[in-house]
């Protein structure tokens, strides 16, 4: 599990702390093929292991939260971070965020939302549902470095 042994009790990002030497496993969700390729490379460049999913339902399946299975603890894959596009057909990134936060298995996993549109109400609703961060697309290396630094090392 993304560490419960937080480095500091005052740390608001204690969820993010990895065990030393672990490579973070990130699940990247985006319906756009080019964006998936880009985010995958950006994350790999920041020393992350990456799994991509092209939509919400596939992401949930990977996390072990598929709706046709009941509480399948242990059949889901452990991820340290989910990064998802907001605008996706079918299940939006917001809906995916909610499902992740509603499940006991995954609610501690940080979820980052990406969007090409920086709409304040959209940002607020995501943050309210527990998103760790809202990043504007197109993604740059500096965005991902910031993210993974927080994930790997929460030493202030």
């Amino acid at each position, binding site marked *: 599990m993304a560490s419960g042994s937080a480095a500091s009790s005052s740390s608001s990002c204690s969820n993010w702390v990895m065990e030393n030497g672990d490579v973070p496993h990130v699940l990247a969700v985006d319906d*756009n093929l*080019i964006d998936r*390729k880009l985010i995958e490379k950006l994350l790999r460049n920041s020393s992350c292991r990456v799994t991509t999913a092209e939509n919400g339902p596939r992401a949930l399946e990977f996390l072990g939260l598929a709706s046709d299975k009941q509480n399948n603890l242990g059949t889901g894959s452990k991820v340290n971070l989910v990064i998802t596009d907001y605008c996706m057909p079918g299940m939006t990134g917001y809906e995916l965020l909610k499902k992740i936060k509603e499940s006991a298995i995954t609610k501690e996993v940080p979820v980052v939302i990406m969007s090409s549109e920086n709409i304040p109400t959209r940002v607020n609703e995501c943050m309210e549902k527990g998103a760790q961060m809202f990043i504007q*697309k197109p*993604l*740059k290396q500096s965005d991902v470095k910031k993210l993974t630094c927080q994930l790997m090392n929460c030493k202030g």
Partner: protein
Amino acid sequence: MEVGQMQRQWMDYTKSLFLEGYLDGQFLQLQQLQDDSNPDFVAEVVSLFFEDSERLLNDLTNALDQKCIDFKKADAHIHQLKGSSSSIGAERVKNCCIIFRSLCEEQNIDACIRCLQQVKQEYFLVKNKLETLFGMEQQIVAAGGSIPKMELSF
């Protein structure tokens, strides 16, 4: 032509693409992601962009050709194209898509059709430019040289 000359030519051409607005800073991001472990990264991503965009442009052409246009569907296609062109730094294509979206919202059929022509034009222009650029890169590598790293200083 010797390698140094080819490299300078490549740099000048790349700069012109930025100055003329075909490409923006996001393309530099892609170039910076290319390294020895992934020497063809830019070409791969751009190749995907070409395939994806041509499919979307076809879908859009069909969508606007219908007796009863599904503007929501057309908007979804344009949203995809805007997203991918933005992600690779194809600035002019992206800007055209932004305009297209507002025309879709207005459900202005004639303007949409004209705008689609514009999007196609911009797309084929940037495709041509990028293919020229990649051609130059292949020649440099074939001659034993390496692709220079672009700076943002212009």
